[in-house]
């Protein structure tokens, strides 16, 4: 993998990509219509870019939530079994067992809309209308006190909602462990085994341990 190989490859690619098409040749790729792009482009950003028309309130959202979401996430967003807990847990992020939910952890409210719209309900994704997604978003945020019950959530209001953990994230500072030349000899005085996986006993039984190999 020499530098000259990379340069040669780059020159080759540049020549090929720049190769002018002759009249009558089959094009590579076609220009989509604006309508096609609009149907594919469903994402919404924290600044509101991409949020569609529509609206909803927590009161409207409760009924939809109970019908479409509660079987996995619980009637109050508290979770059923190992499905994700959606709300609650504010102030728990420093605990030994933090509760990371949409209201305790997520920094931006439009992400809640974007995720529900694209991926929920699990097994029947993208079956909700935009009004329903706005209403469910409102229901979740209101159930944890972030917005009032009658707050109208839409493309304009959603990006302005300040989430409790909006300032909770810092850019990746890694490497965040000591560097330098590693020790090779007499590095530690005493080695103590502080954890045994077998004593925890959660490894699946089928780990296919041949007698020898």
């Amino acid at each position, binding site marked *: 993998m020499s530098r000259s190989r990379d340069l040669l490859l780059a020159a*080759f*690619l540049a020549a090929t*990509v720049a190769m002018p098409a002759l009249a009558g040749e089959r094009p*590579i*790729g*076609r220009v*989509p219509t604006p309508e096609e*792009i609009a149907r*594919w*482009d*469903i*994402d919404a*950003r*924290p*600044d509101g870019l991409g949020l569609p028309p529509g609206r909803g309130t927590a009161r409207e959202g409760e009924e939809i939530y109970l019908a479409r979401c509660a079987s996995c996430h619980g009637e109050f967003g508290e979770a059923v079994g*190992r499905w994700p807990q959606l709300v609650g847990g504010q102030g728990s*992020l*420093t605990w*030994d067992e*933090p509760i*990371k939910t*949409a209201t305790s*952890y997520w920094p931006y409210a439009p*992400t809640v809309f*974007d*995720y529900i719209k694209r*991926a929920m309900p*699990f097994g029947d*994704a993208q079956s909700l209308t935009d009004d329903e997604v706005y209403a469910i978003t409102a229901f979740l945020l209101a159930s944890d006190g972030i917005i009032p019950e009658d707050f109208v959530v839409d493309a304009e209001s959603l990006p302005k909602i300040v989430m409790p953990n909006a300032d*909770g*994230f*810092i*850019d*990746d*500072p*890694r*490497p*965040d*462990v000591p560097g330098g030349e*590693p*020790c*090779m000899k*007499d*590095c*530690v005085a005493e*080695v*103590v*085994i502080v*954890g*045994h*996986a077998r004593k*925890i006993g959660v*490894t*699946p039984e089928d*780990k*296919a*341990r041949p*007698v*020898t*190999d």
Partner: protein
Amino acid sequence: MLTIFPEIFESPLRASLLGKAIAAGLVEVRIHDIRAYATDRHRKVDDEPYGKPSKYEAHVVRRNVEWLTASTESSINFTPLPWLNGIITPNGVFFERHHGGRAEIDPSAHRLLVHGLVEKPLVYTMEDLKRLPCEDRIWFLECAANGGMEWRGAQLDGCQYVRGMIGCAQWTGVRLKTLLERSGLKPNAKWVLAEGADASALTRSFPIEKALDDAFVAYAQNGEALRPGQGYPVRLILPGWEANMSVKWLRRIEVGDAPWYTRWETSKYTDLLPSGKAYKFTWVQEANSVITWPAPEHKIDGPGQYMIRGLAWSGRGRIVRVDLTFDGGKNWVTAPLQEPILPKALTRFYYPWRWDGSTVIIASRAIDETGYVQPTITQLRNARGRNSIYHNNAIITWLVNASGEVENVQVA
């Protein structure tokens, strides 16, 4: 001519110009039926059009840890590292992580849209993509949560489970840069969003610098088309970065001027610290290694000569050194590395070892070309606590007891 269907060729060979040439003695065509050379009673040479491993290798399969997730549609399986060799992961055992099931996509119906802050949006068919300049590249893909179950202590007693969220393959495809240049970037193009066509419509965003560096749109893996679980017919690959970003079933690339902060880069794939703050955009997979033999899946039958086998890798580039310890980290020796040593790919090490039958505590430590040294679990916890889930690249330690059994342990 070698064939298992000699009948097919007899008729055309008698007709046409070729038939006249044969009749005139100008050309001679001999048909050999391969079945005639088969040795078994059934003369089977075509009973397995796509071959499988020997039945004696049935234990070399991906495995799941059921209690990890609520459903297997949104879960992960693990590469059987303790039985693999070399640096290429066979396609059938390459780990899979899906967030909405394994999508089945007809390639003739699949389209990839490139749009957003570009001069000319374009839609590509799979045939279009294969007409563009292509390359073969070897890179690993590793889940950000590889080793995640070990943050609070030694938990899973298997090499497959503590480091198996990784695979390495030769990928064939097109540079993302090629696609972006064909559409023409606008001056304010700063971020790129990738979206999958699976049921979770998974989206991740990343800086334009990565898109123009080594980001890759792959349609083949180890010589054949991508497997459905790897994003058939086409996926993104962001070499060296957490594999969640290498969006499978890729259907849309959008160029923008700011990050999208999708669920997968806020709620998940962020690293929560004891302070309650969290690292975000922790993309690179830092240097890591694991001893794949011996491992908890194996038992050493008695004293004698053995080969220690292991893997090392770094998302920042090449591995330059792997050290081994046999006393839990008091003393280290350097193991020779096998060629090829490629950036952002698995690197293999082997080390001849004589086991005297005593209890030993073995571990490996990788160092990459940036000088980064794989940390101990204590060093990682000092930096990030125990709640992080992701990016646990700490040294993995195996305890070999006097009866030759191997166990995953943590040392301090």
